[in-house]
């Protein structure tokens, strides 16, 4: 059994499982570094998956599908931004409401459009994509995996070497200080949240292509695991990526173990239990940005 782990297939499987964790997880880092908790990622994944399916189904073009998924993610994140940044609503409650909204909306539309409350019609997947140079290279021939790697490197640079990154970090730590230097705190926070929406929407697109359809509730808690991975990764892009790989690895292993003595339900629990253990600080303390979750208001404007 152990030898199954050191195979190309296993590595690819781990990466494929990690993609829908990584994209929203990286998104969460953008959102929370700027000070906005976004537990609506779960719903954004789901909506992203649905609209990607819808767009692809009608046009048979995966790029338009992706565009639809991104737009859906962007719009839901925009609602989150308006509620929590402009109107200072509780970020967690807003996130829960958006998850509920996504659940209702996708099921509602699924019944109306595909005449089924459980799944959509079949759509083409990524196998149709052929990128000249990359297609001959293993792993990188998967456009999403390649894109994730690029995104990770890019994000690392944006966070620590760019003006936007510096301001994002400042706004999440001490928004009043940033404000006093003429930085538009709300705008930066919007940027963080909207980026998280785009990334989670993209994660949804991957789910749809991976399964060649939309199925009810297909995000299956991945948005929450992504959030956990971001926390375990200490609010940093690299950390989040590493944590996602760990979760992906654990899940891969559990697939290898399926049908053995351990009941599947316990294997399903694994990432959640792992997160709780890690959060308890057995593997180093993880401190959130000081202003994370706190709406910013300049009370006298």
């Amino acid at each position, binding site marked *: 059994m152990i030898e199954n782990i050191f195979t190309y297939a296993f590595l690819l499987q781990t990466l494929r499982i990690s993609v829908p964790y990584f994209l929203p997880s990286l998104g969460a880092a953008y959102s929370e570094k700027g000070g906005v908790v976004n537990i609506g990622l779960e719903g954004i994944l789901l909506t992203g998956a649905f609209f990607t399916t819808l767009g692809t189904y009608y046009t048979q073009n995966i790029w338009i599908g992706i565009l639809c998924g991104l737009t859906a993610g962007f719009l839901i994140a925009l609602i989150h931004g308006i509620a929590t940044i402009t109107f200072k609503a509780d970020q967690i409650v807003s996130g829960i409401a958006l998850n509920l909204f996504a659940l209702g909306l996708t099921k509602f539309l699924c019944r109306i459009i595909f005449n089924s409350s459980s799944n959509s019609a079949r759509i083409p997947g990524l196998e149709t994509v052929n990128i000249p140079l990359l297609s001959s290279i293993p792993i990188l021939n998967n456009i999403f995996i390649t894109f994730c790697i690029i995104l990770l490197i890019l994000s690392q*640079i944006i966070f620590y*070497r*760019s*003006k936007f990154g*510096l*301001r994002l*970090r*400042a706004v999440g*730590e*001490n928004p*009043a*200080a*940033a*404000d*006093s*230097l*003429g*930085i538009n705190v709300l705008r930066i926070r919007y940027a963080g949240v909207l980026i998280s929406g785009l990334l989670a929407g993209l994660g949804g697109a991957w789910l749809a292509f991976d399964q060649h359809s939309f199925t009810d509730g297909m995000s299956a808690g991945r948005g929450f695991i992504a959030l956990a991975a971001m926390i375990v990764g200490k609010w940093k892009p690299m950390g989040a990526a590493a944590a996602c790989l760990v979760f992906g690895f654990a899940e891969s292993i559990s697939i290898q173990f399926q049908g053995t003595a351990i009941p599947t339900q316990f294997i399903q629990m694994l990432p959640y239990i792992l997160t709780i253990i890690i959060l308890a600080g057995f593997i180093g303390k993880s401190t959130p940005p*000081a202003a994370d979750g706190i709406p910013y208001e*300049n009370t*006298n*404007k």
Partner: protein
Amino acid sequence: MLAVEMIAITKTFAEKVIANNSISLSVKKGEVHAIVGENGAGKSTLMNILYGMYPPDKGKIQINGNEEIINSPARAIQLKIGMVHQHFMLVPPLTVLENIILGSEPEKNLLLDFKKAKERVSQITSSFKIDVNLETKIENLPVGLQQRVEILKLLYRNAEILILDEPTAVLTPQETNELFNTIDFLKSEGKTIILITHKLNEVKAISDTITVLRHGKVVGVTGTENATIESIARLMVGEDKIYEEKKANIREKKLILEVKNVTVLNENSVEAVKDVSFEINSGEILGIAGVEGNGQHELVEAISSIRKPAKGKITLNNAELKEEHNIAHIPADRHRNGIVMDFSVAENLILGREKENLFKKDITIDESKVKTFAEKLVHEYDIRPVDIDIKIKSLSGGNQQKAVVAREITKNSDLIIASHPTRGLDIKAASFVHNALIKESDKGKAVLLVSSDLAELLKLSDRIAVIYNGQINVIFDADKTNEYELGLYMTGSKVKNE
């Protein structure tokens, strides 16, 4: 020529408090202009308006003779106005350099140009003789250096008009001197400096012109050379007579608190208090002087049984200190630790005492007993307005503090810990608190008074211990020392009493 002219500025906050009532202010170019007034006189509001943090309800502002609408800090920065806020506006996990360039970042090829930034900042640090390591994170810097970074931030933005809000509140006398040297130097470079403070000796020492505010209005403008500390004080406080209790001398002294070789760890498990020993007798006030962050916080928490000492022994009335000991404790930060803002005055008056038999009826808290108790305290301690059912957040800082003092003193504990008990209070409220402490000590209670206000310590204490770097190396009789000497020990310039 006038650098700043503010004309008839009025600002009212949501709670109908008039913070600024038609205030006019003229600041000449190149001068050090002090704005003095008690806490709550409207100084910070006025400066926040000048810096674009709040819009005024009415009034005009002219900068260098031109009328300007300053609707954001960004606009103020464009007009070369800079402000060092009382609570520093720094981002602790970022480096000094990152903090300085934040908001005006040099860029190259879409990325931050750290090289250029560093060159420019180094140029400023050398020409203004301000020395600080640019790669250090702010969270690892002492307060005095953080203030330097704040000033550097202004200079980096080419500020010509520098507003300093209570800059010496957190500094030792020595650090204050350094700051004043910097201010003098900035002035000689032609900068205009507006200094907000309520410390009159500093005003006298450093400023050229003084504007005095009281209750949101200008009550006097004068050249510094024409004013005396007494004359400014009279303008500031008004004609209210302040009654000052005199301390009696208790003959029978018995040991109340004994702190023996106590070591206390802070949140990061670092020894914040190291092997400290002292005693306090009945009827005695022991002052603890020190720059903030030298262990007084942890020491107080240990003695009030909030934090367990790692080593050593604390005894109260010859019995080892236990959690059950309900010690009277007026905490340093009343909003953080002393009151619950969304509770009523009555609810706040039983905070920490909710289980006392005084308020008990079966398993419940008897509201009528609480009411009787609260009304008594509100009258005895002159807490205003006289309404025990309003939320305490609608009370002024002074009245909130009176409520805390009332609650703690009536606990009937032999030891009273008072940590910065008059911080942020106006003179009347402060003297009320002083009198209350003196009265309790005259009744035979032992008082531990922690303060960064050396004048307060010298006035109230019988003895003063200086804490530096977690250690107490010296304890003075209060009448045999002075602010300057205490300052030397507080900064570690002197360690042992020779």
